[in-house]
């Protein structure tokens, strides 16, 4: 399958940047992940969950550390497990609604980062993990692409099934309850989906910027959208656009890809604030 993709890119994109296998892999990764980031960002922005995805992103570092502690060669499963765990914890804190929940969540997420750094830097060996901070999408292997494709396909199915209910719950929890929706389960479910997509992509995007990918497309689309459908479609389009442009720009600038994608997204956001509906 990967060879068919290589042939397709060679046929459609006769450019220098697209001639390398690592760029073809990276392009595939971006095209698999960015539409899902766009779709989920609509709800992250509507529900004001930016701090949440930030906390989950940070937790990934602890996941990496714990994975290496128990001797996993691939920290992926540990990252996924720890992100899901932190997502459950943060939603529980939020739902309890106690005063200062934001503060507690801030403390939890910075503790997770600090714990990760302390564990990984023991003996001065942190530099080999710095790839997790800034991400390394050029190291994508074809086998990982298959896993990412399967993961995003599953999340898309869940999104198709639950997005209407999630929207209703985000407008007003009481309205959703009056329609028999289990709003608590929906909130946990969405949090777990965000945690899963973060864990799935963290090594490529980087812990420092993954949150922006879950916020910028939705924030920019919201400035232009005239309804839920256009909000969603615009977020997906802007996310894919920013990711592809960012990837190509990072090739020519020789810069970290995740951060370059975020900068393109930020520029798009700035542009949309100018074109904002009156």
């Amino acid at each position, binding site marked *: 399958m990967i060879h068919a993709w290589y042939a397709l890119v060679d046929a459609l994109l006769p450019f220098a940047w697209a001639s390398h296998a690592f760029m073809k892999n990276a392009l595939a990764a971006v095209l698999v992940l960015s539409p899902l980031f766009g*779709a989920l960002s609509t709800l992250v922005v*509507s529900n004001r969950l930016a701090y949440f995805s930030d906390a989950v992103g940070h937790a990934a570092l602890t996941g990496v550390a714990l994975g290496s502690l128990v001797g996993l060669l691939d920290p992926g499963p540990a990252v996924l497990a720890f992100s899901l765990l932190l997502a459950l914890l943060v939603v529980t804190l939020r739902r309890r609604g106690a005063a200062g929940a934001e503060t507690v969540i801030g403390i939890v997420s910075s503790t997770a980062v600090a714990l990760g750094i302390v564990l990984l830097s023991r003996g001065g060996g942190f530099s080999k993990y710095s790839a997790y901070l800034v991400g390394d999408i050029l190291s994508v292997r074809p086998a990982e692409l298959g896993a990412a494709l399967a993961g995003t396909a599953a999340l898309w199915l869940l*999104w*198709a*099934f639950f*997005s*209407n*209910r999630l*929207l*209703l719950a985000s*407008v*007003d*929890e*009481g*309205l959703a*309850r*009056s*329609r*028999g929706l289990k*709003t608590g389960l929906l909130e946990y479910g969405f949090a777990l989906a965000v945690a899963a997509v973060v864990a799935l992509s963290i090594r490529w995007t980087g812990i420092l910027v993954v949150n922006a990918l879950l916020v910028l497309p939705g924030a920019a689309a*919201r400035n232009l*959208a*005239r*309804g*839920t*459908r*256009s*909000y*969603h*479609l615009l977020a997906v389009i802007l996310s894919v656009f920013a990711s592809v442009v960012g990837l190509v720009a990072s090739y020519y600038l020789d810069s970290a890809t995740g951060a370059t994608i975020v900068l393109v997204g930020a520029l798009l956001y700035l542009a949309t604030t100018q074109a904002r509906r009156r």
Partner: protein
Amino acid sequence: MSPVPPPRLIGPATASARAPLAAADRADRPACGRCGTSVEGLSVRRGGRLVLNEVSLNFHCGEATVIIGRNGAGKSTLLKALLGLVPHTGRVRHSAAVPAPRGSRRRGAAARPVFGYVPQGAHLDHESPTTVADLFASALSRRPLWLGRPAELDRRIEKALAVTGAGGLSRSRLGALSGGELQRVLLAFALEPMPDVLLLDEPVSGVDHAGMRDFYALLSRLRREHDLAIVMVSHDFDLAAAIADRIVFLDGRVVCSGPPAEVFAHPAVVEAFGEIKAPSRERRAPR
């Protein structure tokens, strides 16, 4: 959920003799006057404090109950507890004189009632791109909104909006509506499909007095036509008295409950709000 009118389980003669259904195809249960929702010993605790203490009430269909009380007396909390939004103890049960028809939102003959809920609406996100039609479609359709709405669903939404005089607003963003428009849209939403009990949390601000009067007249008409059980939190005693069969004075518990004139004369109510002149019969909205 089905757009096709559900089968009528009792003959039109019995149903329409009691309350002729102006839009019979919208109702998902026949009017009967014998259905009721009972609340038994409902208590809510928040941070160790008892916000609601052993509240027991009955709501009959065709009857309007208005809940009054001071700020912090637990009025909105009672509505939220009924919806299951806040943890509570006690029982909420609905008993229907006839079993729910197929396709209705209710599952059994005696189960949790189906609530229609009209929130205050002030907390809605004004910047959100969600339109009125999006709100309806999110509840009425399983098809993801980002794949578009079928024309049939759009017609159903228009029809539902027309019932509360909110026709033509389906493409407006929720955040762009005036207070009165939002109230009508949320009422139309609560009534599609027809619930067992309609819960309303009256907006504290954003709707002027004339707007509220029109809204109450609309509620009166809908109650008559659909034999609705209405439970409403109100801050306007004049308008409340005009629609209420029963007023409940709440102060963490049910202090008193009964016809408007009786409750307004109760010492505890007089102490809380001063003398309230119950509107005379002539000023009351037609039943």
